[in-house]
């Protein structure tokens, strides 16, 4: 089971962070070539990320690169570098429609052929940052078999909606739209960054909300948030205990040839058994909540 709870942002131009970030063990590391890099350092960041991706220290961790938009002078050069360097996933910013993904995909396929990389091995994800992107979330999510996920980017979205970040009400529709699109497409959904790294209580409150909504995980801007997030996403001991009893009851019913499964007098159906299996898989992958 591939967990994508935490996607840690790293500024692509920061050599020190690129040299050490793997020690924090997020589920995915996202090297940023876009907003975190000044215009005059775009070339330097691209080369740093190109070499970091080939560093053996990153061999066991999923790598993502946020490239610049393809309609800028930097986007295509970023793509040439990172696909050749073996990035796992390319994150396209400011995705407004499926056509944006199709354009990206055609370039990725050409580069894969040119450099001898297996065609289809570079996966994609789209960042939804506008009202258009949210309205088109389903067609974006289903636009390519390379897509592994879609992410909501809060700051640009609320600007486009002519509002501001608050208690989460301003993101409610967008979160639900992105999440539903991801579930229809059977890909992962990632929530926005929580920018106040000193507000642990606020961070955990937001994590609890998005976990209950059904998001796979969250983009992070500070390594301190990783452990908090992973712990919040781990199943509780009670969840694990109940899941084990559901699976045991299902196994017993199957052995006895019973069509109906009962646990403590309550009927258990297939979705509950599937959920119990997922809880146990998560517990095996991430441990039990502390």
């Amino acid at each position, binding site marked *: 089971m591939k967990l994508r709870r935490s996607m840690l942002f790293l500024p692509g131009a920061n*050599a*020190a962070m*690129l*040299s*050490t970030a793997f020690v924090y063990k997020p589920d995915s590391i996202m090297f940023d070539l876009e907003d975190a890099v000044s215009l005059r350092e775009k*070339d*330097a960041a691209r*080369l*740093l990320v*190109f*070499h*970091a991706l*080939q*560093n053996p220290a990153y061999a066991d961790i999923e790598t993502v690169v946020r490239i610049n938009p393809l309609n800028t002078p930097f986007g295509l*050069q970023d793509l*040439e*570098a990172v696909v*050749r*360097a073996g990035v796992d996933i390319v994150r396209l910013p400011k995705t407004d429609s499926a056509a944006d993904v199709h354009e990206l995909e055609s370039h990725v396929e050409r580069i894969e052929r040119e*450099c001898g990389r297996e065609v289809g091995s570079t996966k994609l994800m789209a960042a939804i940052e506008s009202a258009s992107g949210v309205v088109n979330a389903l067609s974006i999510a289903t636009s390519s078999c390379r897509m592994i996920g879609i992410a909501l980017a809060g700051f640009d979205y609320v600007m486009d909606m002519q509002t501001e970040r608050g208690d989460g009400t301003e993101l409610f529709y967008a979160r639900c739209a992105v999440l539903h699109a991801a579930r229809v497409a059977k890909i992962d959904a990632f929530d926005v960054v929580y920018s106040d790294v000193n507000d642990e209580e606020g961070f955990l409150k937001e994590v609890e909300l998005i976990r209950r909504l059904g998001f796979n995980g969250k983009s992070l801007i500070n390594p301190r948030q990783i452990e908090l997030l992973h712990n919040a996403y781990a199943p509780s001991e009670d969840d694990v205990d109940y899941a084990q009893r559901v699976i045991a009851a299902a196994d017993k019913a199957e052995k006895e040839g019973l069509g109906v499964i009962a646990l403590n007098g309550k009927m258990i159906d297939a979705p509950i058994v599937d959920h119990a299996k997922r809880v146990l898989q998560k517990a095996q992958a991430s441990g039990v909540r502390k």
Partner: protein
Amino acid sequence: MKIVKEAVAGTLESSDLLVKVAPLADDKVDLVIESEVMRQFGAQIRKVVEETLRQLGVRSGQIVIEDKGALDCAIRARVQTAVLRGAECKEMNWSALS
């Protein structure tokens, strides 16, 4: 690749390095390396820098490096950035930069 103007890449932050390049009239590479970890890793740093310059086809120029404990991948990236800036190179040959 010919260095035609002065150029700089990198920083003096820990785990990074600053690379300065400049054209030289002579057909030689004048390489100066300073590092906080010269005693332990000086030979490795020099090897990575020389290999990177060779890959880029640099045969002439002054290269000054102040290393603050950077990994090999950062050294390669910073040297390449400085040389490409100094050579005013716009077209990248990625297979030659690996």
